[in-house]
């Protein structure tokens, strides 16, 4: 029986649409995965020495201090990316299989997932270094190690409960941010209370039994939770949203574009995948901190400011814009047989990106703290984004034919099909060109001229809006049948 399950899994993995990429990309993916594991091992070994050298002579203490955050972040990442075991179970329900078997297979499957194994690549080498180099007792390290193992499995099972319960998730994030802030401003340090707990697992190795038992209890709970809800209208049911209607009459001022604009805003508000895009664009606003705080040495050159400025203001523009016709992939045949004016369709997406870019620029005003140059880079980047990049992104999107499943987060973090030569070439005008323009101005006169030149280019690009829209319209029409066929292949 187990053999059948495993062969099903094997097939579902290797026959999934995302694996149908060409060989070169497959090799790249494998190399990428390999390096990621190599890094994890490297960090596991290196962490001890780095912390010992730079922070504290007792690395274990430091790790214990921050473990609470490590564990919480782990939970957050799992929530976003780890898939629930219930998928693919429906067709098994009516077959002559014991329900217990199906449930335990589903849960066991999550235990050997990438999200659990990855931690091993850090903690196993770290533990070995602790013994060999740190001169700690084997038993103590083993106790500590097993305790952590238990805690990660606890996370694994907790995730099964909280999955698709957004309230739980957002409250965890809220608590995390609050605690982090409190520590930063020296108001209340939770690690003072949690660090001794982790330390205790080391000092008294037999205590490791507690998290292991806890993990086992959670496993049993997850099992009975699923077993009890193992019906189509209970645990296996699709979550049904309560619809809210909104006329959004304030958008009517945009005239004929408002039809599409309203639809696009609903699209963003009501679908998981597009909401993730919005969250990602907020993250992009903080991306600039790496540049302006001097946290990363490589980014210290003046040209990187423009690079940062483009990303800070353009997070939404890039993450939303590059998939432009694909957002409507689920109902593309409707769009293609309706009386659609492409120009208005495109304009609506364009307005959205412009509005988001302006909003990000306003939100990013805290960069003034790092000097006027920092914020000037953001503003200039925004002008360039609106004038040039908004067009380029829409243009590039016309060539991407990946259907988007709006209701799931799969592939939200990059898609191999989105990676092709055409889109790669288009990053040149998006990112490299403004840096070059800035550099020219920078060397002729100074940073002022650099900023002005980039802004002028942005304003200049604005003039070509109609021309570019015409070109995109032609591409849309030329690629129509291919696009329709590509959108049809759902997974």
């Amino acid at each position, binding site marked *: 029986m187990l053999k059948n399950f495993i062969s099903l899994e094997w097939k579902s993995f290797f026959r999934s649409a995302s694996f149908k990429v060409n060989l070169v990309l497959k090799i790249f993916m494998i190399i990428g995965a390999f390096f990621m594991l190599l890094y994890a091992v490297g960090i596991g070994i290196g962490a001890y020495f780095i912390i010992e050298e730079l922070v504290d002579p007792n690395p274990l203490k430091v790790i214990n201090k921050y473990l609470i955050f490590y564990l919480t972040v782990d939970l957050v990442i799992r929530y976003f990316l780890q898939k629930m075991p219930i998928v693919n179970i429906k067709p098994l329900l009516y077959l002559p299989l014991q329900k217990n078997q199906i449930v335990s297979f589903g849960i066991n499957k999550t235990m050997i997932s990438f999200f659990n194994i990855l931690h091993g690549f850090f903690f196993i080498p770290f533990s070995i270094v602790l013994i060999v180099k740190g001169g700690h007792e084997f038993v103590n390290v083993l106790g500590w190690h097993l305790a952590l193992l238990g805690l990660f499995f606890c996370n694994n099972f907790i995730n099964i409960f909280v999955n698709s319960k957004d309230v739980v998730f957002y409250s965890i994030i809220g608590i995390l941010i609050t605690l982090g802030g409190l520590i930063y401003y020296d108001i209340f340090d939770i690690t003072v209370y949690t660090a001794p707990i982790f330390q205790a697992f080391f000092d008294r190795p037999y205590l490791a039994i507690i998290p292991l038992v806890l993990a086992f209890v959670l496993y049993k709970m997850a099992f009975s939770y699923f077993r009890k809800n193992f019906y189509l209208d209970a645990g296996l049911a699709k979550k*049904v949203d309560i*619809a809210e209607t909104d006329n959004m009459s304030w958008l009517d001022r945009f005239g004929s574009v408002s*039809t599409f604009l309203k639809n696009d805003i609903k699209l963003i508000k009501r679908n998981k995948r597009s909401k993730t895009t919005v969250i990602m664009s907020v993250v992009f606003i903080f991306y600039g901190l790496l540049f302006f705080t001097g946290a990363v040495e490589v980014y210290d050159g003046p040209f990187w400011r423009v690079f940062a400025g483009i990303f800070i203001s353009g997070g939404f523009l890039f993450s939303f814009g590059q998939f432009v016709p694909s957002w409507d992939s689920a*109902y593309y045949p*409707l769009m293609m047989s*309706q*009386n659609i004016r492409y120009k208005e369709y495109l304009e609506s997406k364009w307005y959205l990106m412009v509005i988001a870019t302006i909003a990000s620029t306003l939100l990013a005003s805290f960069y003034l703290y790092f000097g006027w140059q920092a914020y000037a880079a953001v503003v200039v980047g925004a002008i360039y984004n609106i004038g040039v990049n908004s067009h380029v992104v829409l243009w590039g999107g016309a060539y991407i034919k990946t259907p988007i499943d709006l209701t799931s987060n799969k592939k939200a973090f990059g898609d191999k099909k989105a990676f092709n030569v055409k889109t790669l070439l288009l990053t040149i005008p998006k990112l490299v060109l403004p840096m070059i323009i800035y550099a020219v101005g920078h060397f002729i006169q100074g940073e002022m001229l650099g900023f002005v030149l980039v802004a002028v280019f942005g304003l200049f690009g604005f003039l070509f809006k109609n021309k570019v829209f015409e070109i995109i319209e032609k591409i849309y029409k030329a690629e129509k049948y291919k696009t329709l066929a590509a959108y049809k292949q759902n997974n």
Partner: protein
Amino acid sequence: MITTTNLSKSYNGVTVLNIENLDIPKGQSFGLVGNNGAGKTTYFSLLLDLIQPTTGHIKNNNVLVSESEDWKPFTSAFIDETFLIGYLTAEEYFYFIGELRGQNKQDVDAILAQFEDFFHGEILKQKKYLRDLSKGNQKKAGIVAALIGNPEVIILDEPFANLDPTTQIRLKGIIKDLAKTQGVTVLVSSHDLLHVTDVCERIVVLEKGEVIKDLATSEATLKELEAHFSGVTES
């Protein structure tokens, strides 16, 4: 209204549709029947310019569909759930379609009012997005959306499948009325011979992509179709 000439479609050398000549006059209720893979949906997709013909062409009201887009304002269709926008409520979807077809809210409301008993209280004011409605209710929403904006040509792919008996009967009434009193050309495909003979003045049987029967509906049509299909071996 709709003229099909030398139309064929093949995939990798396999011909799935081959229609030499087919004329559908204005105001006709036209039925397309055939087993799975006979080419019904392929024909409708070609008619809506969703796929490209390998040879030949279709003219809709003298507009060459694969060349010009001028057929769109007077043609509407519901083929499958890819014609629905899942994250909208039914009302929002109807208004959206209405706006695309130049109808304001009042116009759309007036149309929807006529279909109150068709909806059976399960479509409007439901606090549900279309993606969360049952298959049958999704179909109802899609069919009604295809009637918005006074189209002259309406294409419905298997409109009776997934519908409950009451709704099937009501839908038959709606389709008959469209063709008879409003002069709308209605194209319907179906696996249900009884419904299709009931609704359509003319029935064309497709088999492996070819027209093998073209009948004006009469008393004897149903018998003839049943005899034909019981003789056909499922391919």
